[in-house]
């Protein structure tokens, strides 16, 4: 309760504080806008990568990252090419967010990116070369947006990726601009302190400077300049470089805000890696200095060439970090999974599928049946909301005409979201469980395949409701009374079946033939379909509805037919009788489509004769 109230208050408070901040500080406004654009870029990037799930990109990524050395090399190579570890880390976060790779592979890439980023120092120091990928930001945005307008799923995906990258750079640019005012405050000479306190202080300054400038490369340039001007000692310069390495994780952390828990875990791994590496470097700074001198002497780097020595240091301490952290990769994955959990309420978790029941066919079957009943109840709730009705009212004793009359307003409802949160995880857990059952009894096997079918029908019903919802929301409140009446009719039919099914379900415990009771529903379904066809022909003939409306109604009456049919099928496949013998007998007697049709034809003949 308190949590809910807090949530309600939190958003308006944040908005007010931000608005006040924008009013008093233009710099703050610029930084916040930068963060917003950056996050928007992340969303676009993830959207883009989603278009490639199950395709070539996923295959390539899986092949190139399926072993630790491969994911490491992937990180090194991609960062060397792009010259931005931040970019590689945010792209990796979006790979994870889109489900293209796993956390362990992501961690490998991040480790590799940390090594790859050291090539930047070599390029700057050795060749004075500076690759500036941000120069491509604007063209990326333009090309991206053009591609987004294309029909092809892959072109659209590529468009989102390009636009996402463009927005990332644009966001970073605005953040930099906003921080420009603070940049002047970084006067390194002012803070010169000797010994370990100095080391820690300069590490913190390095972190701050990198956050402010949004680039560890820029910090490195600053360090080299300060070192050349003898504003700081060589040791302090190294501490700054360590700080820059930690500070660079801010981009990944920022990127993870828009990602799911897997993306957040990766950002966590990035932070842990860089902080640990930084700590190791600080603790063993003297040994590292010695090692840098040795390597420099071996490589023929002059004693006073601090720029190149800094590059050696940068490479060395990141290399040590990778070597130290690799053995702990799995521990790191487990730790992050424990610390950053999926929100418990976000995705429904199975309640009845326990592992111990797996060995006993009957117990496992009962667990599956109960879980299917649970997911069915959830699905019925989603379907009811999908057609703008209240489940409780559908199941009440109020006449159905009255139910529809009372709820005659279209209520928008996100079926996809509800499916992700409530249904998907349960259905996949159920299917997974059916595969684990070891019983070989043919009766159990038959019933398991029925449970699978029930879940399959459930998913189809939800998909059809999603299609139906689109026009239904538009037409139930239409000014044209004919089309509005027809769409309300469709809602009523679905609701009626849901009510009858609920009553059959409730009578399941009593000595009823619940599976066979479903046949009457099948007959009603066929009868109603014929009646609707007749009405539809009349409406088209009399010009009561436009051609567009008629096409929508034709499609949607088919969706309604499928929804009802699937709802019946779900119950047909998971309901049971008092005894196993009777369940099987009921399945034998249940009428098939042809038999239902022949009952229907007999009824029509009798009516005609009368």
């Amino acid at each position, binding site marked *: 309760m308190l949590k809910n109230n807090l949530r309600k208050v939190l958003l308006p408070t944040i908005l007010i504080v931000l608005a006040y901040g924008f009013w008093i500080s233009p710099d703050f406004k610029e930084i916040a806008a930068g963060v917003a654009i950056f996050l928007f870029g992340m969303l676009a990037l993830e959207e883009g990568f989603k278009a490639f799930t199950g395709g070539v990109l996923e295959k390539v990524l899986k092949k190139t990252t399926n072993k630790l050395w491969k994911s490491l090399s992937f990180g090194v190579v991609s960062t060397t090419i792009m010259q931005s570890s931040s970019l590689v880390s945010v792209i990796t976060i979006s790979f994870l967010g889109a489900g293209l790779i796993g956390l362990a592979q992501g961690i490998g890439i991040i480790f590799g990116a940390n090594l790859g980023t050291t090539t930047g120092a070599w390029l700057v120091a050795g060749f004075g070369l500076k690759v500036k990928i941000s120069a491509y930001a604007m063209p990326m945005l333009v090309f991206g947006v053009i591609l987004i307008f294309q029909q092809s799923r892959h072109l659209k995906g590529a468009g989102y990726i390009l636009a996402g990258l463009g927005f990332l750079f644009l966001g970073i640019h605005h953040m930099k601009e906003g921080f420009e005012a603070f940049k002047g405050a970084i006067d390194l000479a002012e803070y010169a302190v000797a010994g370990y306190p100095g080391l820690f202080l300069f590490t913190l300054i390095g972190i701050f400077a990198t956050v402010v400038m949004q680039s560890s490369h820029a910090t490195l340039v600053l360090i080299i300049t300060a070192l050349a001007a003898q504003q700081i000692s060589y040791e302090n310069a190294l501490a700054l470089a360590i700080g820059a390495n930690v500070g660079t994780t801010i981009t990944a952390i920022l990127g993870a805000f828009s990602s799911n828990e897997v993306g957040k875990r990766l950002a966590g791994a990035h932070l842990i890696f860089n902080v640990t590496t930084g700590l190791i470097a600080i603790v063993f700074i003297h040994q590292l200095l010695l090692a840098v001198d040795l390597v420099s002497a071996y490589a023929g780097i002059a004693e006073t060439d601090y720029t190149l020595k800094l590059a050696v240091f940068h490479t060395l301490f990141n290399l040590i970090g990778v070597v130290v952290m690799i053995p702990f990769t799995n521990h790191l994955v487990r730790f992050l999974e424990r610390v950053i959990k999926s929100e418990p309420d976000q995705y429904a978790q199975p309640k009845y599928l326990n592992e111990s029941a797996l060995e006993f066919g009957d117990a496992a079957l009962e667990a599956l049946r109960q879980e299917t009943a649970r997911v069915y109840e959830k699905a019925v709730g989603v379907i009811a909301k999908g057609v703008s009705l209240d489940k409780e009212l559908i199941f009440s004793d109020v006449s159905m005409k009255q139910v529809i009359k009372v709820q005659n307003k279209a209520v928008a409802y996100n079926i996809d979201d509800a499916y992700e949160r409530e249904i998907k995880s349960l259905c996949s857990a159920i299917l997974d469980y059916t595969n684990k059952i070891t019983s070989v009894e043919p009766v159990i096997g038959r019933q398991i395949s029925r449970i699978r079918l029930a879940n399959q029908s459930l998913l189809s019903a939800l998909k059809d409701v999603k299609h139906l919802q689109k026009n239904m929301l538009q037409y139930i409140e239409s000014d044209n009374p004919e089309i509005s009446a027809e769409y309300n009719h469709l809602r009523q039919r679905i609701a009626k079946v849901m009510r009858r099914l609920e009553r059959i379900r409730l009578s399941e415990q009593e000595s009823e*033939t619940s599976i066979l009771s479903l*046949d*009457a529903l099948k*007959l009603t379904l066929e009868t109603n379909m014929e009646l609707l066809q007749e009405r539809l022909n009349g409406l088209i003939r009399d010009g009561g509805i436009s051609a567009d409306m008629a096409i929508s109604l034709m499609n949607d009456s088919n969706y309604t037919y499928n929804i009802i049919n699937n709802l019946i099928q779900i119950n047909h496949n998971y309901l049971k*009788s008092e005894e196993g*013998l*009777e369940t099987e*007998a009921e399945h034998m*007697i249940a009428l098939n489509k042809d038999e*239902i049709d022949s009952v229907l034809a007999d009824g029509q003949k009798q009516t005609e004769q009368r």
Partner: protein
Amino acid sequence: MKFNKLLKKLKIYLDSDADQLRKEDEGLAKVLKKLKKKEHALKAKIAAEKDKDDREQLQQELKVVHSQREKGIKLLATLREKKRK
């Protein structure tokens, strides 16, 4: 010895087949009894129902139950025929 073993296996197989038939017979008979009851109950309900729509729905249900009983009876007859053979 080997022949005896084979005979034993055959007997178990035939017995399990017979057991299966017995179970099916039992199940069908029970369900048919329930359907018969249901048919009577529906007839009584139809006679008492005043609302036209509801009566039509009940009549449809009756037709379905009747067809199910017919199908069940045929199935049971075939099953018993099989058992006799």
